[in-house]
Structures are given as structure tokens and as C-alpha cells.
């Protein structure tokens, strides 16, 4: 059956399109509500996906991801409060446009640029994922171990200002991953005789606790959110003339987003600010930037949406998440017993066709859904913060309970939430901990399996050329990050 026929069949005979639109709507709302990031919006959905078919679960999560990247621009433009970190660059000129009475125009530019970024990103995902994953068919346990180490080395680039704290967070995540039964001998580790822990600490509960619950704890001491003046904003699509003007900033945004999407740790925030800077550099209307420039809205929006889509490539090809959001997505795969990578392509290619189809539906539906949901988004953004926080907590607790009908699971969410709050207090970055948690089992089990197969010969990791290449790359990542940090501190001191 050819691809086109398969896509049509998936759209017309399965609930795939419906699931994609639901995810998109949820993502837009989630991104629009300050306090709910794309990560939290996805984490809140994880318990719901437990009972879904794997394809629908993954499509739901990815569509949420796509929707949230656009949704974050709504409060950024209307009330100068980015719904997502990546929307902070959009806020600079977007809010100025609102102050000038051009809110509808700003929202329209944001929506069309998001669409362009997402569509181009999707095309790249479809073209590049499978060829890259063919490399992984040659993988042995030693290669998977080295790949996990490469994934961990990403910590060096996502640690933010402090590499030491990044390492601290990564080790913390790895320590949590050791709870449960030993992968080789089955011996219990750190279970305290509790049967609920024999299978390890459920990834989903830790993610929901670390992100969503700790966010609630943080919000409890923060002020009320600003409200938009008037609620009669209407989306206004850019004219043809405006489209011509926005062609270059959109192209810049897509190029930057593609680059940052494949670079682990860069993320939508880096993409959007880089795109903003580059769009300003090449603009014929530089003086307008910071004062309501349409290009200042277009470039960051196309960048962060391209970044979001392209960021799926390392995840789907190798199973390595490059951001918090793709780490949640990896959690979604693992919950359904799926391991992203070449095995997924060979074992169940229809799953990936389904994913690409779902992404296509989400991208195409984005303009329609944006129009349809703007009014409701404004209504929700206007709701009193206490009610929003209360309903988020109810969703968190209900979702966590729905997995195993277990009060112990609810306790785990609370404990993970306290841990997440502590991490925020000590300014420990979350992604390293998440990477350690997600990659810990893969690293340990493949390391020990390699030693069993080689009868204790550690040179297996050097003799395997793929393993050696990944280990060298990991070392380069870490050394590069350390050197950059040292250079930065010297520059600051002088």
C-alpha cells in the first residue's frame, strides 16, 4: 500500500484526525495558560494516554506539543506574559503591537508563522528520520550503552550556567532509575520491601510530579496574573503584501529552528531569540524592532515551531530526547512498550506513518483551530488564577490515580513534586535529571549485557566502532561545554 493511500485510510477510517485535533486544542489552551508549559500540558495528558492505542497516544502528545508552541504566543501578545519560555521573544514586539491596537494582526502573524515553521519542520522529520534510523540497525548492546552516554553528555549543553549543577541533576535522575529490580539479576534495589516499587519508579508519575505539581507549589507564592484589556480581539490574517515582507523573517526562523532542533539542549527559547536577532540583522526596517515590528513576531514563531518539529528527529531516529518536551514524548513511547529507533521502523512502520499523518493533520488544522479557539482561550486566560490552579491539581491527582487506582501513586507524585520544588529552589536544571531518569535503565542494562557477552572484557566498548564514535562524540560535547564555560568565566573576570 503506498504512503498516500495509507495516509488517506488513516485519516478517514481511524480516529487519528480527531485525536490530533483534540491534542492541538489542548496544546493551544495549555500553552496559552501561563503556568502550564508544553511540558506540563503533555505530562498532564500522560495518564490519559495509558489506555489509548499507542499510535493515538503518541499523536495526541505530539499534537499537544505543536499546539502549545503556538498557544504560548497568545498571552505573550495580549498580556505581556509568555505562556511558554519560547514565546518570550514574541512578546517583545507582539505586546507592542497590542498596545498600538494591532493585537489581531499580531495574533494572525503568529499563527501563520507557526504554521509555516511546523509544516517545514514536519517535512524534514519525514525526510530525515528513517534514513538516520537505518544507522541504528547495526547497533549492539555496547552501541546502545554508548548512545545512552551520548544522550547523558547532552547534560553538559543543557546545564545552563552551572555544569556542576547539571551533573548533580543528572546523577539524581540516574539514582532514581536504580530503584526497583536489577535489570540482570532481578534483585530488589531500594524497594524497602514495597511491592509497588518492584517495577521501579514509574516515569510518568515522576514527570507529572516534577513539572506539574512543583509548578503549583511555585505558583502558590506568586502574584496574580495580569488580565487583557477587553476581550474582543479577533485574529487578522496577514495581507499578501505583509506575507511578502514576512518571507525573509519566516525563512530565517525556519533555518534557525531547524539548526537548534537537531542540537540537543538548544530548545525553542534559544531558537526564538536567535531568530529574532538574525531577523533584525537582515531586516530593512531594523528601527521598528522593539516597537511593534511584524517581523519581530514572525521570526521567533516560525523558529520555535520548526524547532519543535525537527526536535523529534533525534528522538525518533535514536531514542534520544533533546528537550524536556521530547523527554515526555519518550515517556509516552516507553509507557506503551515502544522503543524509538530503527526497531520501531521495522517492527511497526504503520505507527510512524500514523505519527506523521497526525502531525500533518495538526499542522493543517492549526489555522482553523486557532480561529475557533481564540475566544475560549481569552475566556480561560481571564479566569481567576485560584480556580485555574485548583483544577490543574484535580487533573494531576485524578490522572495519576487513573493509572493503577493506587494511593501510593498519588504519594509518589507529591514526593516528586517536592523534589521538583527543591530543584527549583536550588536552581537545579530539570532536563539533566529527566535525562538521567529516562536513560538510566538503557545505559546500565546495555553496559552489563555487553560485559556478559564479552565475558568481562571492557575493550568491547572500543572495538565496537559505533560505540567508540559515540563515546568520542560524548567526550567532545563535554569538553566543548567545559571549555566554553571556562572561556566565559575568564571573559567575565576581565
Amino acid at each position, binding site marked *: 500500500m503506498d504512503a498516500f493511500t495509507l495516509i488517506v485510510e488513516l485519516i478517514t477510517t481511524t480516529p487519528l484526525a480527531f485525536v490530533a485535533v483534540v491534542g492541538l486544542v489542548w496544546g493551544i489552551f495549555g500553552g496559552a495558560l501561563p503556568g502550564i508549559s508544553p511540558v506540563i500540558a503533555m505530562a498532564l495528558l500522560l495518564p490519559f494516554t495509558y489506555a489509548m492505542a499507542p499510535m493515538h497516544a503518541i499523536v495526541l502528545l505530539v499534537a499537544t506539543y505543536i499546539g502549545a508552541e503556538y498557544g504560548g504566543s497568545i498571552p505573550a501578545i495580549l498580556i505581556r506574559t509568555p505562556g511558554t519560555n519560547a514565546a518570550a521573544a514574541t512578546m517583545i514586539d507582539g505586546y507592542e503591537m497590542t498596545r498600538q491596537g494591532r493585537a489581531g494582526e499580531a495574533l494572525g502573524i503568529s499563527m501563520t508563522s507557526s504554521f509555516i515553521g511546523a509544516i517545514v519542520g514536519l517535512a524534514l522529520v519525514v525526510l530525515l528520520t528513517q534514513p538516520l534510523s537505518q544507522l541504528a540497525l547495526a547497533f549492539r548492546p555496547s552501541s546502545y550503552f554508548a548512545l545512552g552516554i551520548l544522550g547523558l553528555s547532552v547534560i553538559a549543553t543543557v546545564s545552563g550556567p552551572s555544569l556542576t549543577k547539571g551533573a548533580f541533576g543528572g546523577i539524581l535522575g540516574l539514582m532514581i532509575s536504580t530503584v526497583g529490580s536489577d535489570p540482570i539479576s532481578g534483585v530488589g534495589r531500594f524497594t524497602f520491601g514495597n511491592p509497588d516499587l518492584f517495577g521501579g519508579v514509574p516515569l510518568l508519575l515522576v514527570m507529572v510530579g516534577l513539572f506539574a505539581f512543583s509548578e503549583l507549589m511555585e505558583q502558590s507564592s506568586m502574584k*496574580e496574573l495580569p488580565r487583557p484589556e477587553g476581550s474582543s480581539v479577533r485574529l487578522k490574517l496577514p495581507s499578501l503584501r505583509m506575507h511578502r515582507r514576512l518571507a525573509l523573517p519566516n525563512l530565517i526562523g525556519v533555518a534557525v529552528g531547524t539548526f537548534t532542533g537537531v542540537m540537543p539542549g538548544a530548545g525553542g527559547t534559544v531558537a526564538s531569540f536567535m531568530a529574532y536577532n538574525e531577523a533584525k540583522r537582515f531586516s530593512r526596517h531594523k528601527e521598528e524592532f522593539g516597537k511593534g515590528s511584524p517581523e519581530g513576531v514572525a521570526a521567533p514563531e516560525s523558529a520555535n515551531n520548526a524547532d519543535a518539529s525537527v526536535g523529534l528527529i533525534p528522538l525518533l531516529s535514536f531514542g534520544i530526547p533533546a528537550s524536556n518536551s521530547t523527554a515526555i514524548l519518550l515517556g509516552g513511547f516507553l509507557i506503551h512498550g515502544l522503543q524509538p529507533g530503527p526497531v520501531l521502523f521495522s517492527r511497526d512502520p504503520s505507527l510512524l506513518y500514523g505519527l506523521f499523518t497526525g502531525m500533518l493533520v495538526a499542522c493543517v488544522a492549526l489555522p482553523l483551530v486557532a480561529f475557533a479557539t481564540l475566544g475560549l482561550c481569552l475566556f480561560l486566560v481571564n479566569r481567576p488564577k485560584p480556580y485555574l490552579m485548583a483544577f490543574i491539581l484535580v487533573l494531576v491527582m485524578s490522572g495519576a490515580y487513573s493509572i493503577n487506582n493506587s494511593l501510593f501513586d498519588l504519594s509518589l507524585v507529591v514526593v516528586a513534586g517536592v523534589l521538583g*520544588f527543591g530543584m527549583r529552589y536550588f536552581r537545579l536544571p530539570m532536563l539533566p535529571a529527566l535525562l538521567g531518569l529516562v536513560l538510566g535503565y538503557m545505559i546500565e542494562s546495555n553496559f552489563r549485557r555487553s560485559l556478559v557477552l564479552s565475558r568481562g572484557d571492557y575493550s568491547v566498548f572500543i572495538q565496537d566502532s559505533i560505540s567508540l564514535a559515540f563515546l568520542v562524540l560524548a567526550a567532545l560535547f563535554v569538553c566543548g561545554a567545559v571549555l566554553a564555560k571556562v572561556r566565559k568565566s575568564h571573559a567575565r573576570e576581565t
Partner: protein
Amino acid sequence: MERNFWLGLVGLALSTVYLYGASFIRSTSFDDPVGAAGLPQILGWLLASVSILLISQAAVARLRHTTAASSEEDTDPTVFDAGTGQAWLRGLGVVAIAVAYIALLPFVGYPVAAAMLIFTMSRYFGMPLTWRVPVVAIVGALVMWGLFGVLFKVRLPLGLLAPLLG
């Protein structure tokens, strides 16, 4: 930088407890060269080393009289600043509400517990006490029960409302 010092101490304490727990991991005849306790021991010592490094960095920064404003991570606007004890107390209040929910859920049932949760959280986050708050709590709880209990068919405890909804 003070915070890094305390983080280092917390890390040292955690690594000590973790290594102590790792000492109880049994070895078996199925063990490979690393064994079930291998990775936990490595991680415990790594955490101890990183913690000592953090404490050292904090001490050096203190000796150089580095102010908080000159520290890049302290000026990172994307990082939450829970510098005051009040922020911690407020956060722990949310924990207390969640713990109370978990404790009451098996007895009062999901609809009542959810309504109490919405009411308490709304009030905790500053909603003034008017007739709207309990109404939103009750309606919200019923919507949630309809979503999870009826639509998603999750087996939720009904508790006090079992004779009515069961």
C-alpha cells in the same frame, strides 16, 4: 552562592544515605562483573564528589566576595527564585492539601474529595469566600467525576455518595 553550599550539604547527606542503602543490595550467582550494587555505588560516590565540588565552589566564591548579582545563574530570569521562607511555606501548604486529599479519598469518595480539593485550593490561592466558590467546587467535582468515572471508566471510590451514584 550560599544556596550552592546548602545544596552541596544536601547532596553529601543524600549520597551517604544512598551508599548505605546500596550496601544492602544482595549479590547472586546471576551477577555479571559489575553486579546489582555496581551502578548504585558509582552513583553514590559521584554524587558525593559533585557535592564536595559545589561546596568548594561556594567557599571560593565567598572568599572572593562574589555578590549574588554577578552570578549568572542568579540573574537567569527563567529560574524561580524561592529565596524567602514564605515561598517554601506556601509550597508546603499545597503539599498539605494534596496529602489531605490522599488521606480522605478512600473514605469520603472521589466526588466529595475532589470538591473539597477545589474549594480548599481556590481559597488557598486567594479566592474570597463567596457563594461562587462552593458552587464551582461542586460543579467542578461533578464534571471531573463525569470525565474520569463515566467517560474514561476509571474505578473511582464513591465513598459517601456510593448509595446515590453507585
